[in-house]
């Protein structure tokens, strides 16, 4: 990998995607460059295409058109990236995607699976480094105290923090988070955004997270991308994104009639 390659976490050129059987593109004409070390907030009304864009970057979206390079690996529209590439990109799922019948610790440890040899993992043999990464991730996410509880015995916010810890334990170069604070109380939400930002800063990795709390999100991002109807409506610094512009982005959505409510950070 050359220095020029590692300067960019992701490069998208002219990307389109439409879910099978739909009449509208979920994302269209996306041109986007993520520089290494950036912390990007992804905002926009419900259905704007935030989750779709994030799953594209995660290598999970099939059937897109256009060019997509993530951590210098060119994505294939027909198949998932190879294992080592998948391990480099971490994802915090909107619906958490936890193994309900497994303990918190086991769920977090699953984040390490991309890094251990297949045989070792099948027989539950994780290294010291794996165990300490899991413990650190749980401590950071504030879930150590219930680490032995089963995931299906937790509250929504607790489950969300388990999903976050799983991604932290993975130690990815690019961290993608789909509404990572949707279920958290205001204090926790700030703490988690702070934590994600710090983690990314410490490892010089890259963060992109979506949120329905634009004002809060902007405080923890050095770049904001707003999606509307699948296209980029704003891409720039949080400072330049004023109330008027914000209201416009959300007002374009027919469903949301009162954007000012959303602005409460």
């Amino acid at each position, binding site marked *: 990998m050359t220095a020029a390659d590692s300067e960019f976490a992701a490069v998208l050129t002219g990307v389109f995607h439409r879910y099978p059987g739909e009449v509208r593109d979920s994302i269209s004409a996306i041109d986007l460059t993520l520089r290494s070390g950036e912390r990007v907030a992804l905002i926009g009304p419900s259905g704007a295409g935030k989750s779709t864009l994030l799953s594209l970057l995660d290598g999970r979206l099939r059937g897109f058109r256009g060019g997509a390079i993530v951590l210098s690996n060119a994505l294939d529209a027909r198949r998932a990236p190879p294992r080592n590439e998948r391990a480099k990109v971490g994802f915090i*799922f909107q619906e958490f995607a936890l193994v309900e019948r497994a303990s918190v610790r*086991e769920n977090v440890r*699953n984040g390490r699976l*991309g890094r251990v040899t297949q045989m070792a993992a099948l027989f539950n043999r994780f290294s010291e480094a794996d165990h300490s990464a899991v413990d650190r991730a749980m401590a950071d996410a504030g879930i150590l105290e219930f680490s032995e509880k089963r995931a299906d015995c937790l509250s929504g916010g607790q489950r969300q923090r388990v999903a976050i810890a799983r*991604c932290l334990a993975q130690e990815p170069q690019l961290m993608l988070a789909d509404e990572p604070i949707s279920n958290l109380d205001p204090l926790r939400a700030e703490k988690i955004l702070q934590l994600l930002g710090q983690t990314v800063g410490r490892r010089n990795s890259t963060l992109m997270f979506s949120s329905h709390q634009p004002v809060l999100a902007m405080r923890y991002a050095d770049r904001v991308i707003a999606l509307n109807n699948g296209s980029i409506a704003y891409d720039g610094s949080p400072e330049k994104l004023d109330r008027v512009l914000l209201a416009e982005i959300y007002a374009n959505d027919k469903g949301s009639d009162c954007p000012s409510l959303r602005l409460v950070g």
Partner: protein
Amino acid sequence: MKPTDPDESRRASWRAVWPSLVIGAAILWAGIGSDIELSRVANAGGRIAEFLSRMFPPDLSIAREAVDATLETLRIAILGTIGCILASAALGFLAAESMTPRAINAPVKAMLALMRAIPLILVAMLMVGAVGLGPLPGILAIAFHATGMLGKFYADAIEGVDRAPVAALESAGATLLQRLRYAVWPQMAPDLLRDTVFRFELNLRESLILGVVGAGGVGFYIQTYVRSFQYDKAATLTIIVVLIVLLIELANTWLRRLSR
């Protein structure tokens, strides 16, 4: 629907009475049609008493044989269960809607339904015809019959697996085997274990009686002794059967308390 429509209300009242008419007719037909002489029961008092008296005291001299027969029954149940676990794993996978296209899972589901619809005793008779007397036809019969139910249960367990965590682990770099081990297996294991233990219990109960058609185990000896009028020996074995059933019940209660 207009309640005032006379046609409609006549149809409704017909719909309400016809099940009663069918049931009534069936009872009449069953009672009149066959030559059941209730008087035989009334006159049989003496014979029943004699029959029972010949069972007492149970002949304990066959204790050795009884233990062997019991162990054979246990062996039939264990091997039959292993057989149905293997067949159910394969057929359950094929029958799961989340694993195979409809062209495969629908016929396999139908086949499983058919397999559990055929009475075990009939399967056992056919197996005895096919492979001869002894425990082998019993094992085959149990494996075949039980797969009809266990295969369905396994398919349900597979269909119940939530794909989201599986996709999450794939995204984190887990291989197919790792995903099966850490996302699929933990979701299914408790159900598979519960269903398999339940089926083993049924297999054990059912294998007690299989021998009646010559498929090995305690039942075979009971049938042999009854046919040769050695009721005292048959009594010993009957007591053993009752004891085993009680033991199964006890184990069951204990297991259920454990798994709570």
